[in-house]
């Protein structure tokens, strides 16, 4: 052998390796095929090597397609990124699979679509990027997280998916900096999700964080955003307000003469909102080779929300350390870890009663000024100031008192007062991650033992000042509340993967177990004063802590009890493919819940799945057609079952009927002595079992023109059976709470279409990716003993959403508005049951908050260092119920509500008169239901990357600057703040005054050393 080597003539080769963009690639491995002879490219992508004449060189780099080229003297090698190739790997849960082998419906969102956005929560990146995924938000306040719905509303209340971060199940993924995410895979069909069995009923989102790549890279990303509130609803001005309530009869001119200064015309939006700033820093260090990878990152994100004052703030400091290391050929350790610290100051929105500044700024009368100087207080404020028995009249400290309305005697109060009444700060700290040992004892077999862990700690601290607005909104004392909660979660999973090929047959399999436990220990309490004592030693924020409460303060304390939850699971998966043409996957998972969730005899759920695929384009007959423009045609079909107990909303032992104390009753007149009252907690239901989603999916994948054009088409039909229904009252005569039941079926079906095109015209590279999904949601069965299920309520005006057979889940339930009675000016409703009278029975479906279609489009282009990215998303077919009005108090109203109202001089008005007798019912009628359709351009980003020849001189590999307009343009007919933000769950599509998305002007910087 030695002799042969000597004989073979050696030659010297050299060359440069660059990436798609022509940027030199550092650290690419260049290996003479079949030998150990190799080098790594230098800083400028150059390499030089002596090889045997005629030999083949192998160029490889993590994340890029490996190339084999014949050695020549002066080589120019371009490596293509793996993501653009057919052989892209997709994370599928306990393993990865080649994209070409997929038989289910899995959508992928990659880091390009996640990085450099103004989002703080990774889930928001899914919106508009994948067909069939809807992100709905009840609030866009700083630190709020969205609810993701995959393929419709299946579970009853909580339809959120399961998140799996680097293999570890997580309920809260808000600690992850979106810039640290490599990819997110959405397992949409039942068969793909089946490997997560009992938790996958609402779909699964797999999140893979970044791993180290390249030979030592340091990156710094910086983003600065200036944000402001977008659309401001049109409201009545002072003059219109006064006229309205004169007509209403609630106020007289005398009242105005007495209480109105005659000139105030307050724009409460100006009082409530201001421009504010968001910043984001991210530093990362990474390197990778075939021995292992390291990724270390530190990031800081802050968002001072648009409300004036310090009511809405969020900041997050997070670190990530991801390491893989091969210690032996048969031993690899991977460890992914994040440490996160968040601080949040927050308040309640999407809340119909009073003290919600988002609602208050729309409802406060324009006659009251934001502040009054001490020298010129209105009578009602003077009365508060002069009455020592009342709480404090709050001021800005400079002698200006915050305005208190004498027109609205309810808890709708000046947002400046809201922001000074008190504060709640939430601080949390978490260490989450997973560490695994991978043992490949022989080729094709890997045994993995993985430990997932989440150590979290959340403390809240809040106080409420003494203040007085009116007898519905006051406090004569101070209160300090605090809580601490430390949930600890661990998950141990053991599984083995084996893959082998026998001839044209490829077979692989996975088998394993999973066990997890969470233990939460928390305590919360409050010290407060009362009508006789203020509660704290001094009325000074420095004393608003428990330590400085007075002896007479009232105390409450709760918690101090460990709460455990555990799950045990077994799972297996078998893949078979023949000649890259026929694909088959079979999955089975068995899950057991603990007795706090389900009765022991019903704890096990079994969730099977099967899927098949046929890659038509790999058939010999197809190849013979010689359609060079067709790269791939694949047909897929899948069926699978998944489970859920999410509808129990985390409440424990709901199925059990036990004796519990409901209160203490005094048993003496002369002394203080109590007896305890014990009652059965519920009817009990020992047959409660897993709720099951069964989904059928067919799909088609196409690739044309050198894979420049790709298209994916899916049809799904997802039936959720044995829906768990809680908190229902089949009859008021039962007299006790009815335990949860498996009592309904919901059907979601629809089409999904994803289309991608990319091409180069010379140096100009561009791509277009678009997706659209349709959804039809229908309740197909409700258990006989329930009939129909009532959902959300509004004020004390009854049920507004319902769950009923042959209707969409939680449809809007109200009167159909027919018009205005020209004689009385009262609203007229349709007599839907035709019994000759309009009664409660005539309420009917007047809308639904579920969009029937959603879509998104992303256009990217780059040319000589310039890059442009435009991204928009939209939805339609849904309605928003605009519940931003009140009939009980003299609230300001939207101009649209009142402009053409009936009055004695406008008897043809199309809205009821001011103070119509049935105004409350009218608020809950179809006239207040608006189209929820919108299209939002969520991002227009223009970037410029400085030429590397320039930046290289200052040792910078890449320097990109960009500007962006985020959430800037919205096209909608909705009259409220933001059609994107409304209620979720049973209140889906109900707008009670939610914090809207802000418009953002963004400047950013990406640097790589």
């Amino acid at each position: 052998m030695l002799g042969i080597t000597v004989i073979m003539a050696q030659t010297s080769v050299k060359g440069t390796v660059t990436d798609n963009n022509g940027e030199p690639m550092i650290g690419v491995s260049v290996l003479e095929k079949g030998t150990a002879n190799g080098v790594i490219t230098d800083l400028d992508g150059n390499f030089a090597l002596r090889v045997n004449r005629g030999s083949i060189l192998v160029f490889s780099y993590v994340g890029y397609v490996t190339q084999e080229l014949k050695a020549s003297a002066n080589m120019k090698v371009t490596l293509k990124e793996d993501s653009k190739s057919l052989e892209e790997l997709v994370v599928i849960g306990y393993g990865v699979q080649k994209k070409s082998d997929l038989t289910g419906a899995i959508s992928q969102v990659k880091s390009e679509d996640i990085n450099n956005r103004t989002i703080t929560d990774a889930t928001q990146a899914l919106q508009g990027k994948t067909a069939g995924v809807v992100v709905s938000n009840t609030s866009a306040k700083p630190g709020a997280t969205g609810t993701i719905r995959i393929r419709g509303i299946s579970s009853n209340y909580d339809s959120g998916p399961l998140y799996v971060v680097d293999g570890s199940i997580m309920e809260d993924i808000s600690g992850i900096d979106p810039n640290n995410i490599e990819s997110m895979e959405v397992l949409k069909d039942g068969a793909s999700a089946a490997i997560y069995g009992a938790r996958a009923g609402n779909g699964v989102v797999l999140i893979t964080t970044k791993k180290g790549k390249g030979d030592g890279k340091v990156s710094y990303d910086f983003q600065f955003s200036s944000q402001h509130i977008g659309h401001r609803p049109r409201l009545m001005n002072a003059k219109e307000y006064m006229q309205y309530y004169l007509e209403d009869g609630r106020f007289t001119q005398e009242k105005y003469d007495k209480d109105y200064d005659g000139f105030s015309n307050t724009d409460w939006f100006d009082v409530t909102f201001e421009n504010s700033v968001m910043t984001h820093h991210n530093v990362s260090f990474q390197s990778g080779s075939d021995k292992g990878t390291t990724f270390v990152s530190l990031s800081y994100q802050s968002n001072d929300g648009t409300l004036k004052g310090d009511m809405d703030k969020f900041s997050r400091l997070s670190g990530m350390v991801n390491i893989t290391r091969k210690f032996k050929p048969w031993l690899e350790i991977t460890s992914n870890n994040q440490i996160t610290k968040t601080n949040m100051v927050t308040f309640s929105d999407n809340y119909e009663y009073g003290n919600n500044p988002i609602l208050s700024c729309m409802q406060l009368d324009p006659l009251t000024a934001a502040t009054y100087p001490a020298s010129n207080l209105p009578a009602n404020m003077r009365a508060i100031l002069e009455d020592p028995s009342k709480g404090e009249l709050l001021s800005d400290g400079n002698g200006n008192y915050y305005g208190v309305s004498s027109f609205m005697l309810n808890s709708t109060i000046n947002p400046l007062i809201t922001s000074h009444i008190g504060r709640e700060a939430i601080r949390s700290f978490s260490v989450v991650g997973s560490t695994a040992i991978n043992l490949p004892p022989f080729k094709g077999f890997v045994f993995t033992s993985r430990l997932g862990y989440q150590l979290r700690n959340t403390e809240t601290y809040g106080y409420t000042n003494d203040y007085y607005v009116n007898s519905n909104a006051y406090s004569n004392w101070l209160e300090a509340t605090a809580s601490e909660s430390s949930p600890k979660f661990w998950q141990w999973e053991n599984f083995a993967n084996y893959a082998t090929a026998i001839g044209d047959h490829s077979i692989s399999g996975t088998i394993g177990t999973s066990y997890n436990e969470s233990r939460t220990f928390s305590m919360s309490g409050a010290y407060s004063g009362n009508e006789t004592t203020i509660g704290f030693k001094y009325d000074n924020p420095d004393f608003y802590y428990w330590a400085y409460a007075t002896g007479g303060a009232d105390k409450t304390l709760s918690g101090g009890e460990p709460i455990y939850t555990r799950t045990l699971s077994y799972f297996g998966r078998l893949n078979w493919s023949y000649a890259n043409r026929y694909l088959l996957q079979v999955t089975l998972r068995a899950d057991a819940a603990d007795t706090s969730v389900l009765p022991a005899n019903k704890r096990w759920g079994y969730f099977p799945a099967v899927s098949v695929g046929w890659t038509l384009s790999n058939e010999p007959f197809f190849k013979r057609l010689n359609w060079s423009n067709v790269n791939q045609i694949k047909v897929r079909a899948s069926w699978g079952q998944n489970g859920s107990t999410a509808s129990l909303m985390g409440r424990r032992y709901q199925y059990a009927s036990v004796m519990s104390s409901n209160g203490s009753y005094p048993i003496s007149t002369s002394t203080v002595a109590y007896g305890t009252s014990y009652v059965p907690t519920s009817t009990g239901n020992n047959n409660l079992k897993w709720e099951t989603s069964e989904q059928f999916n067919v799909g088609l994948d196409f690739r044309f023109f050198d894979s420049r054009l790709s298209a994916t088409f899916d049809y799904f039909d997802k039936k959720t059976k044995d829906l768990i229904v809680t908190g229902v009252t089949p009859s008021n005569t039962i007299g006790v709470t009815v335990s949860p039941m498996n009592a309904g079926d919901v059907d979601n079906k629809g089409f999904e279409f994803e289309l991608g095109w990319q091409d180069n015209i010379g140096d100009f590279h561009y791509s277009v990716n678009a997706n659209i999904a349709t959804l039809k949601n229908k309740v197909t069965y409700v258990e006989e003993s329930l009939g129909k299920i009532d959902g959300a309520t509004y004020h004390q005006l009854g049920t507004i959403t319902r769950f009923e057979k042959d209707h969409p889940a939680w449809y809007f339930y109200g009167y159909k508005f027919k018009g205005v009675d020209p004689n009385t000016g009262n609203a007229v409703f349709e007599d839907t049951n035709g019994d000759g009278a309009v009664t409660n029975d005539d309420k009917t479906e007047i809308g639904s908050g579920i969009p029937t279609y959603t879509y998104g489009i992303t256009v990217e282009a780059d040319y000589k260092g310039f890059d442009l990215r435009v991204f928009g998303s939209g939805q339609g077919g849904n309605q928003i119920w605009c519940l931003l009005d009140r009939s009980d108090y003299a609230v300001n109203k939207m101009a649209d509500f009142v402009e053409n109202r009936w009055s004695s001089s406008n008897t043809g008005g199309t809205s009821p008169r001011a103070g119509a007798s049935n105004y409350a019912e009218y608020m809950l009628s179809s006239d207040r239901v608006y189209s929820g359709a919108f299209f939002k351009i969520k991002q227009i980003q223009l970037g410029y990357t400085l030429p590397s020849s320039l930046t290289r001189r200052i040792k910078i590999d890449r320097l990109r600057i960009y500007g962006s307009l985020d959430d800037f343009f919205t096209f909608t007919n909705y009259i409220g703040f933001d059609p994107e933000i409304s209620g979720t769950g049973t209140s889906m599509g109900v707008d009670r005054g939610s914090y809207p998305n802000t418009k953002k002007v963004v400047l950013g910087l990406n640097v790589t050393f």
Partner: protein
Amino acid sequence: MKRLLYILFASSLMLTTACESKLDIDEHGVLPTDKFYSNDAEIESANLSLYYQLRSMEYTFMIEQQLLSDNFWAGGGVRGDNPILEKTNEFTFDGENDYINSIFSNLYRLNFYANTILEKVSEENASAVARRARAEAKAFIGYAYFYLTAYWGTPPLIDHCLSADEYWQPNCDQATLWAYCEKNLTEAINSGDLVEKTDLHDNETWRITKQTAQAILGKVYMWQGRYSEAAAQFEAVRKSNKYALFTEDDYGNMNMMAHKHNVESMLEVNRSYDTANPGYSFTLTFCTTNWRVDKMNGHLAWGINYLGWGFMGPQKGLYDAFVARDGDNDYRRKQTLKSFDELAEMGIHINDGEDIPSDGVFMWKTRSLSESLINSPFADARNIRYMRYTEVLFCDAECLLQSGDKATALSIVNEIRARSFLPALTDLTMDDIKIEKRLECVDDWTRFMDLVRWGDAYEVLKDQGAYMPFCNYKGVVTHRTFNNDPSQFGFKKGKHELLPFPSSEIRTNPNIKQNPGY
């Protein structure tokens, strides 16, 4: 090496399998239902749930009954302050009225707790506590069904704890329901297991007594027009000598904290002045009386609660009824109501320039005072009185009169008048009883029920809702119109004699029929 791996793999599988027992997690802080009723202490705990239920339901039970009558306005600080109460007061309510619905559900909850006791505490159990629990359960079933039947006419009869296949019970005919009330009350009364007061001044006996059960049974008969049977029950109460008219303090103070379980008390919910547990005494009842405090001054000097929403303002018609009966200056009226001018003399005023939805009349007899508040205007140590001896006496007088014993009836009414230093009547008609009972029982929640029973409701209430009075700081009352369509407000014949079943009941239960007109 490989062998080690296999061992590791196999053992990890076994380890996780062994974990299944870890899935059995016991619930904290509860007791199993099947074993619960095994001793006297536990039976007494279940028994207390009946009283605790009365305590939980008092606010809506009281205020709805009061506002259905011609004695009160829904009031508040402004029009719209409490739309549910305005709708109740103006007869524009329907099956979505949360307060009416809560009374319905609460009475059925009381019935459920009672049924639970009857099912779980064995008839064979000879202990005194067990027997008393069963007797009280029957008495409270009678109590609950008296109101259910009187207000809803044909509510479902639920005589046991329902299982899942029995949730949709149909309407039950009234005769069956009345018979069911009579049976339960009679069994309770005859059991010998209900307590009785030791003597007239016993203020420690707080449980439902034999006499209270007799009074409820009397009302059941009276509602059916069976006056002599009713009178027999009421007379039994009167002749027990365990109850009397309250004279220990001023008439207008009989509801205050110092007079819990006084001689007139037939049934009341206990509260304690316990600064360690103000939450145990939470109630909205006392914040709803008085006037809206934002708009008044001078009241603190009279010890009046610093919080008041004024949701129960007396109507001028009530004031006028006192004047028409005994002139403008009698003790009873002054201890019941104060006029605007009387308040002004006391230094209590409406704030300058303000007005409130009110006739300018102030309810004195149930005024809310600061003395009984426990560190909070929502925690009040006053007991809530569900039934009063005066009411029983009026029922007695009415039934005696109707069954021919006018002399005894007259003496009873005169006894009541004499307590307030009013001259005796020389003759007695039903009209006298109606007027006297209205004036005496302002705080007994019975006015609407009586009007319906007497057939007077339509005449008295047909225009209620045509206007709302507003009294300004000068005492000038103006009427403002909010309902302009007479077909949409006021008591309607053939409809408002009964309350609507909750809409949710109609929506879910296909076997129940809504009452006419709703």
